[in-house]
């Protein structure tokens, strides 16, 4: 398979106006991906599928990612004149990066036996703007998986032939895989709660005065 740079250059040459970024993955898997702008995504996808040297004819996986709003702190050294003397002072600035949702597709070429190529698309925001172009017209295998992304992450795919919920029922309004999803408060006894489940368990445990407030109770009983 060609390198990501080569594929990116080919696609940008072939599709006029397409803007493709490489999202590096410094982890052990080294699976960097291409971030495709939403406007030209379908054209770029068609190009990746149809170009004889690439021929990505199989979309094996489509999934979603939820990126919450986050604040990045930066420290920059700024020269300032303090009391007539020029000094270097560390200045911290906070940059707020708004959250967005992402759809990730893993592409393979069965014909040329190469892959995976990972492409991503990002929504404008996590609210009303959570829309992306559907790649189902390009790869039919994305149909059910895009429905699943819609169901669990709430990304609306424009151009999808049958965008309905697939795992949850139609009346359900939440998107359970989003990081800010709040579960119904239905905790039940769990033999070995840990981590998040332990936190949920603590909210439901009956009060334990002999341990949790021993001093107070003891003081009351003496008086």
């Amino acid at each position, binding site marked *: 398979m060609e390198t990501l740079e080569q594929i990116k250059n080919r696609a940008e040459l072939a599709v006029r106006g397409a803007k493709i970024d490489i999202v590096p993955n410094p982890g052990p898997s080294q699976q960097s991906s291409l971030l495709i702008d939403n406007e030209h995504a379908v054209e770029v996808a068609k190009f990746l599928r149809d170009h004889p040297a690439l021929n990505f004819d199989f979309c094996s996986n489509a999934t979603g990612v939820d990126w919450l709003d986050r604040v990045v702190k930066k420290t920059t050294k700024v020269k300032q004149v303090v009391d007539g003397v020029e000094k270097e002072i560390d200045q911290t600035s906070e940059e707020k990066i708004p959250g967005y949702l992402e759809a990730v597709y893993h592409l393979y070429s069965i014909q040329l036996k190469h892959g995976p190529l990972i492409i991503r698309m990002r929504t404008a925001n996590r609210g009303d703007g959570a829309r992306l172009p559907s790649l189902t017209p390009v790869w039919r295998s994305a149909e059910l998986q895009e429905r699943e992304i819609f169901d669990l992450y709430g990304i609306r795919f424009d151009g999808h032939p049958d965008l309905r919920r697939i*795992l*949850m*029922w*139609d*009346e*359900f*309004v*939440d998107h*359970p895989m989003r990081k800010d*999803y709040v*579960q*119904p408060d*239905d905790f*039940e*006894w*769990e*033999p*070995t*709660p840990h981590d*998040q*489940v332990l936190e*949920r*368990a603590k909210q*439901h*445990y*009956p009060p*334990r005065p002999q341990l949790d407030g021993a001093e107070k109770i003891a003081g009351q009983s003496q008086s």
Partner: protein
Amino acid sequence: MSEGQIDEGLRAELQRQGIWVTSMQELYNWGRKNSIWPLQFGLACCAIEMIAAAASRYDIARFGGEVFRPSPRQADLMIVAGTVTKKMAPQIVRLYNQMPDPKYVISMGACAISGGPFKQGYNVLKGIDRYIPVDVYIPGCPPRPEALLHAFMELQRKIDSQKLSGENKAEFLKPEQPSEFPVPEFGEHDLNPPANPKTYRPPKLERA
């Protein structure tokens, strides 16, 4: 000696003389317990074990339970074999309601009992006993076919001990006992109601 029963010693003596004495209740229960027809109905990996129990190696036919019925109208037993998702729960309750009395439920595997490994998930019901009464629980993930046969034999024991008349007669003979249970509706965040408040008692919370 309770009603409808005969002295064991007298019966053994009569049998020795070639006279077989029984009661209506014994005959009725003997017939019922040896022809339990399960509903053909599997949900997850436990269903594979249920199929194995029905196949020749374990052979549930030895206990009279091999007639898996595709219609709830002809079934006596519902084996809830596998994970009950919240989306599936109303259909299970509806199938249970469509079964004729007397009807029994085996809750097979950790998921059907309590939600199992998916208990804290967002779309798995924390036990089918939130909506329908369960006669036998089989722990395991999944339980082996022997465990299902054991549960089947326990159910036979229960059927055998059910009285047909008197104060302690079986639940299904009491007209005031419900044989149908309300089907939960799909709500915006959860099933509505999340459990049948009339029959379901949540387990007591204990600190781990």
